[in-house]
């Protein structure tokens, strides 16, 4: 028999811990040991980095934080064996989840931001800055309260992924992408209004 199975593709299987050498993605030809970084990392990074930052930025509202998230996501990707053809979708989903996790666990950061706000009171446009920052915080909080799948679908769509790309990455039908995005937008509006009126 055999075909491709006969190489060092890992089939020995007990648990994830008996990890096997990772197989190469379709675009690299050398099998890698566990822990080694995939050969196409740089190529994928250069193509996908702006998109991954954009997805995270939709959640976080901040480019700096989005770049931190993108780094984290690419590090994980570098150790993975996600096929190159699925890389963009995988990275986008991972960026959305990771960014939403940052929001969920970001109370301390919010406090730090408040402290910084007070410090840079000399800036001439400080009022604008505060309004923007406050707005951003409300959006982040609202996103974090949406059902996770809705939030992920929403930010992916609003980051420029097509319905087909979102559908493929999340394993949804293109039809249900529209439904999910619609629901998420309604929920987001309600969340934002609810909190605006209670401020």
């Amino acid at each position: 028999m055999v075909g491709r199975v006969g190489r060092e593709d890992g089939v020995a299987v007990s648990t994830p811990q008996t990890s096997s050498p990772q197989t190469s993605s379709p675009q690299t030809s050398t099998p890698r040991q566990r822990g080694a970084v995939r050969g196409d990392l740089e190529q994928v990074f250069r193509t996908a980095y702006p998109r991954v930052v954009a997805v995270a930025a939709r959640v976080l509202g901040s480019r700096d934080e989005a770049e931190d998230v993108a780094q984290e996501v690419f590090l994980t990707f570098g150790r993975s064996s996600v096929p190159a053809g699925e890389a963009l979708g995988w990275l986008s989903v991972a960026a959305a989840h990771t960014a939403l996790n940052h929001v969920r666990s970001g109370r301390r950061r919010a406090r730090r931001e408040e402290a910084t706000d007070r410090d840079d009171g000399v800036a001439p446009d400080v009022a604008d800055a505060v309004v923007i920052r406050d707005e951003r915080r409300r959006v982040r909080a609202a996103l974090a309260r949406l059902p996770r799948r809705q939030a992920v679908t929403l930010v992916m769509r609003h980051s420029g992924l097509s319905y087909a790309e979102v559908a493929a990455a999340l394993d949804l039908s293109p039809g249900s992408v529209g439904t999910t995005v619609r629901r998420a937008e309604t929920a987001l509006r309600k969340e934002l209004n609810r909190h605006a009126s209670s401020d």
Partner: protein
Amino acid sequence: MRHPTDGTLRRLVDEPAGVADADREHVAGCPQCLSGLAAAREDAAMAGAALRGELTTEHAVEVEVEAGWRRLSHAVAVEGGRRRSATTSAPRWRAALRSPVVAAFGVVVLLAGAGAAAAADWLQIFRTEQIAPITVAEADLIELPELSAYGEVEVTEEPQVREVADAAAAEKATGLPVPRVGKLPRGVQGEPTFQVGGQVVAVFTFSAEKAAKTAAAAGEALPTPPPGLDGSQFRLTAGPGLAAVWSEGHGVPAMVVARAVAPTAYSSGISFETARDYLLSLPGLPDDIASQLRSFSGDGTSLPLPVPAGHVTSSTADVNGTPATVLTSRDGIMAGVVWVQDGVVNAVAGSLSAGEVLSVARQLRVR
């Protein structure tokens, strides 16, 4: 005709080419749908503006790919260096070994720790063999913090998986008896090839400092570690293992039958329960996973499997009296059954039904 769904109206807002002509024509002449479309357009615009945030204001989004790549390369290099320096500590470790605890620590490691990477390896086995595409679930698994967030993880022995000539060679390489399959399921035929892998050993050193940093990043304070935990080490071993693979042409495995020595964890001093309860109390671990893990493993013998919810369903069964976990992909393409007997993990999986893998499992004979 029926009114198009809200989802269709939403797509009409920004990707009208993806909507069927009939739906478009209907909407154009239907006041109710036009009103729904207007509402969808309004919400979409609102959401778009909200999500753009500061990015529309003075900061143009010009992502510096070059700077980003330099940063990532550096991080990758640092990580690689840590891995390479790992191997030297193994002998000293063995001297420190005291209380062996069983796979339950593996529970924490897998689900709380090795997380995405480890689970990716499990999934990758199937991906590699092209049984079913299970990509998305990996992204969900990223939510889990890595064990390295709480200390140093060093893989000191790699399994070096390779193919061997036949069952006898597999047995010789691993010391494990090769299971004989009774009746092959329909669609599975011919002789299997054999893969073997050696023992994997990883050492985890808990670092209160690292854990505190992780907690701080999550916006929380680190609960006080129990005495003796800081700097204490846990050694995790698994394997050796072997697998018999039946191919179905084009390298697609029709069925895999595998056995491996079950993961075991050893502590350098502190008791497993103490470490487990403490790790599970740390911020960053999703609550539902922490509570699942806590309810697990009272006896320290349960073997965990990260099951990517949404793509795989799991259920329980028994294999000749031993409790087993049956995993079925939601698309019905593959199924697997895993059980532990006498310290050995056994698995039967393939592009088969749950009934077929169970039937093979129940008829396995160990020579």
